[in-house]
């Protein structure tokens, strides 16, 4: 399918020689999490600008960073910002720098399958989640969970932890949050796209984790919000910095982003897990486009800049139907300024 779509622009160029001369073909690769909205954006943008074809391959955040660094794609996309070492590598390889542009926001939610527990509204604290995923909390009736859920009768059952087996931006966001709320997690496990899981079994991708949790009683896992909603798996509330148990939804994510928007760094590389604010859902994240500062081909630079501007304005309206949260206005304004750096 992917291979085939690559040839589409060629076919189009053959079929419409009139347009052929002005065709701009742009290739991108990276994060799987924003893939649904990116595909929609690129196809809608193409409809509005028939001379522009943007091809995006959802190969994973790590792959996106690698490919944009090697220069095999025109832009990358990632769910976790590039670290300083990666930025330095980009600079030595490509001469110029690379810019992060947040596009939409998403959330990672704890899902569970425990007979007898309510299908929604089960409360988790950050410490309890870290304890469960570290193996220090092993039973569903642990005092830490009982305290967070007064009045709920908890079964005396062993917890089965399900995590991702493949490297992923979802895992990055999840472990980023656990590192922030648990010093023990930070020192023993840490934060990354793949980590050395102390307990549990690994399943492939969001559908794999969702399926494993669905099929195994007394299990707990984590997936992106949209997968939990689509698969109708019970997902829990998470306690935020202000002590409020927040249900993961778009309002909670946007609240988390608004908290972070006030002190947004110049390069947009910011983690909004454990964000301040009463309504903020604490396991939220931006997802970024990675665009090089310097382009050889000015036509490509011009088109990409125009596309980002479009995604930040008209494109934002498409976010919510696809279960992504919109960017806060302050962030959009800041990004539009930063676009001038792309040359």
């Amino acid at each position, binding site marked *: 399918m992917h291979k085939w779509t690559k040839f589409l622009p060629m076919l189009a160029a053959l079929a419409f020689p009139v347009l052929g001369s002005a065709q701009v073909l742009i290739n991108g690769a990276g994060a799987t999490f924003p893939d649904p909205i990116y595909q929609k954006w690129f196809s809608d943008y193409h409809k509005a600008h028939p001379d522009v074809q943007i091809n995006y391959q959802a*190969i994973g955040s*790590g*792959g996106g960073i690698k490919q944009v660094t090697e220069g095999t794609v025109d832009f990358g996309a990632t769910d976790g910002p590039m670290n300083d070492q990666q930025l330095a590598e980009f600079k030595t390889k490509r001469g110029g720098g690379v810019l992060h542009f947040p596009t939409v926001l998403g959330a990672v939610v704890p899902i569970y399958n425990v007979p007898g527990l309510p299908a929604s509204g089960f409360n988790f604290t950050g410490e309890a989640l870290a304890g469960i995923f570290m193996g220090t909390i092993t039973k569903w009736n642990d005092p830490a969970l009982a305290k967070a859920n007064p009045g709920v009768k908890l079964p005396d059952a062993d917890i*089965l932890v399900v995590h991702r*087996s493949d490297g992923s931006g979802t895992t990055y966001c999840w472990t980023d949050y656990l590192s922030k709320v648990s010093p023990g997690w930070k020192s023993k496990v840490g934060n990354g*796209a793949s980590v*050395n899981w102390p307990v*549990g*079994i690994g399943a492939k991708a969001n559908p*794999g984790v969702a399926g494993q949790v669905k099929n195994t009683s007394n299990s707990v896992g984590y997936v992106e919000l949209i997968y939990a909603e689509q698969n109708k798996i019970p997902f829990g509330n998470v306690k935020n910095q202000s002590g409020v148990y927040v249900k993961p939804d778009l309002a909670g994510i946007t609240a988390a982003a608004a908290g972070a928007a006030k002190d947004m760094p110049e390069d947009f590389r910011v983690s909004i897990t454990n964000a301040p604010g009463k309504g903020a859902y604490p396991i939220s994240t931006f997802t970024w486009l990675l665009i090089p500062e310097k382009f050889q081909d000015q036509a490509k630079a011009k088109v990409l800049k125009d596309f980002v501007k479009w995604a930040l304005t008209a494109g934002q309206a498409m976010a919510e139907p696809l279960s992504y949260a919109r960017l806060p206005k302050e962030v959009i304004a800041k990004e539009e300024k930063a676009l001038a750096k792309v040359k």
Partner: protein
Amino acid sequence: MASSASRTENTRPRRVSRFLTRARGVEAVAHGVAFLAASTIVAITALLVFELWINSALSRHKFGWDFLFTSTWDPISGQFGALPFIFGTVVTSALALLISVPLGVGAAIFLAELAPPKISDALTFCIELLAAVPSVIYGLIGIFVLIPALQTIVPPLKSVFGFLPIFSGPFYGVSIFSAGIVLAVMVVPFIISVSREILLAVPRDLREAALALGATRWESTWDVVVPFAKTGIVGSIFLSLARALGETMAVTMVIGNTPRIQASLLAPGYSIAAVIANEFREAAGDLYTSSLIELGLVLFALTIVINGAARLLILATTGKAAS
């Protein structure tokens, strides 16, 4: 007359020799082409090892032999040990062979020697179909059919055999055991179809001689035909072992993807091919990538070692060099 006769006498050998040189030329070309075809296989293998060796340099220098004997796999702290993956690969493949060899060889003997031709042909067609099923389908069947079935079968089994370490601990469905069964189902068609061909190729005279000496149908099959085909049957087992060692998709879907070494077959595990497929795409940092490539090298070496050991075993049991 004389002159014409002498002409024909002169020209005939010349024509023959011309034909012969041309034939020799064709021979040489055919020889060269065949040699080239054969040497590409060696070249591809050599290139493969070379690439794996070069690209795993970082991890080889950092961990040395410890890579093979430690069991921490921590991308964050940059600590990589392959032991749990080697363990999972070897155990699942061994389990698969344990199940599939008796089943496969038995089925091949039935199809080649005992079954009526009509049944044999129909079954052979089914087996060839099985061999063509993509591995992701086997993985899905593993998740949606085998594992739910095992979840009902295993608990009573555990109540009887639970005292054995290999059946201890909780059973979540995904496990080394499930992976072994899925692999067995995947490789059994290879064993059957290759072994059957080998058995059919055994000269008819041998069977007739055995029967003439008063052997029963089964005696002639088991004491004459099967020993004659032994090398070929073992070859079919090698082929399926290689497939089991390298199988990725179906294994990662049912094995549980947990890099820990546990005595229980019911516990989740991990295999080399599965971890490479799962983590390579998102591997950040040179040491991480290099360690995953070294895992590929380890898998390659493992295949060679196991094949070599099996070949030595045959040499020892047959007494003569199996050509």
